[in-house]
C-alpha cells in the first residue's frame, strides 16, 4: 500500500495504491490527516483508481475522513471507484453521504464549487 498526494488549487488529492485493508488503513490514516491539517481541511479527493482490494476498513477510513473534513467545514469527494469496489460502496450506504465521480477532475471541480 502506498499513497501519493498532491494539492491542486487548495484541494488535497490522495491517490491510494494496493490493498486497502486494516493493515494499510492503520498506516495511511495519520498520513492523510497530517496533510489535511497542512491544507486546512478545505477539500479532499480520494482516488480509488489503483486500489486492487478493499474491505470495510476502507469504508472506515472514508467515514473517518468525512467526519474530520466536514467538522472543519470542508468537503470530500471520491473518484474512480472500479467495478469490484462498487458493491462494497452500495452495500455500506456510504453513497448517501459522499459522492463518487468518474474522474479526478470531476471530483476536484465538485469539491471546489461547493
Amino acid at each position, binding site marked *: 500500500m502506498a499513497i501519493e498526494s498532491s494539492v491542486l488549487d487548495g484541494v488535497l488529492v490522495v491517490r491510494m495504491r494496493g490493498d486497502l*485493508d486494516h*493493515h494499510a488503513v492503520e498506516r495511511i*490514516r495519520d498520513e492523510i490527516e497530517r496533510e489535511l491539517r497542512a491544507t486546512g481541511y478545505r477539500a479532499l479527493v480520494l482516488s480509488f483508481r489503483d486500489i486492487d*482490494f478493499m474491505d470495510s476498513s476502507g469504508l472506515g477510513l472514508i467515514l473517518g475522513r468525512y467526519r474530520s473534513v466536514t467538522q472543519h467545514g470542508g468537503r470530500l469527494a471520491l473518484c474512480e471507484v472500479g467495478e469490484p469496489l462498487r458493491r462494497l460502496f452500495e452495500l455500506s450506504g456510504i453513497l448517501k453521504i459522499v459522492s463518487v465521480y468518474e474522474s479526478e477532475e470531476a471530483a476536484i471541480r465538485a469539491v471546489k464549487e461547493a
Partner: protein
Amino acid sequence: MDRDKSMPAAGNYMRLQFPSRSENESLARVAVAAFAAQLDPTLEQLTELKTAVSEAVTNAIIHGYEDGEGEVRISCSLHEGAIEIVVEDDGRGIEDIDLARQPMYTSRPDLERSGMGLTIMESFVDELAIDSAPGRGTRVRMRKHIAPVMAQ
C-alpha cells in the same frame, strides 16, 4: 489417477495459522484465494471470498485479540462445488452475537471501524454461522457455492 477430471478437488482442504498481526491479513486472503482457485471461481466470486476472509481475520485481530498477540486459525475445505471457510480465534469472544450482526454496529468506533464487517460477510457468502464463547474465542464459519456440482 487424475483427480482433475473426475471430481476436482473434492475432499481437499487446507489449514493456515498465523499470529494476530495486521501484516498477515493479505497472506490470509491470498492463501484462501489460491485454494479456492481449484473450483475455478469467477473474478467476482474471488473478490467476495477475499473480502469475507479479510473481514473475519481483521475481526479476530482487532476485536478478538484487541491488537494483542494471539493465533488466528483458518481452515478451508471443498464440498461439491462449495468452499467452506472457518476463521477462529481464542480471543475475548462476542457477548451479544445478534447485536454484533447489526449493520453499522461496532464496539470500536474509536478505531474508526465501520461496523459493516459482518454485514459484508453475510452478503458475500451463502451461509454465515458465528459461534462465540465470551472470554474464550470466536469461530466464524462461511460457506459459498462456487462451481456447478460435478458428476462423481
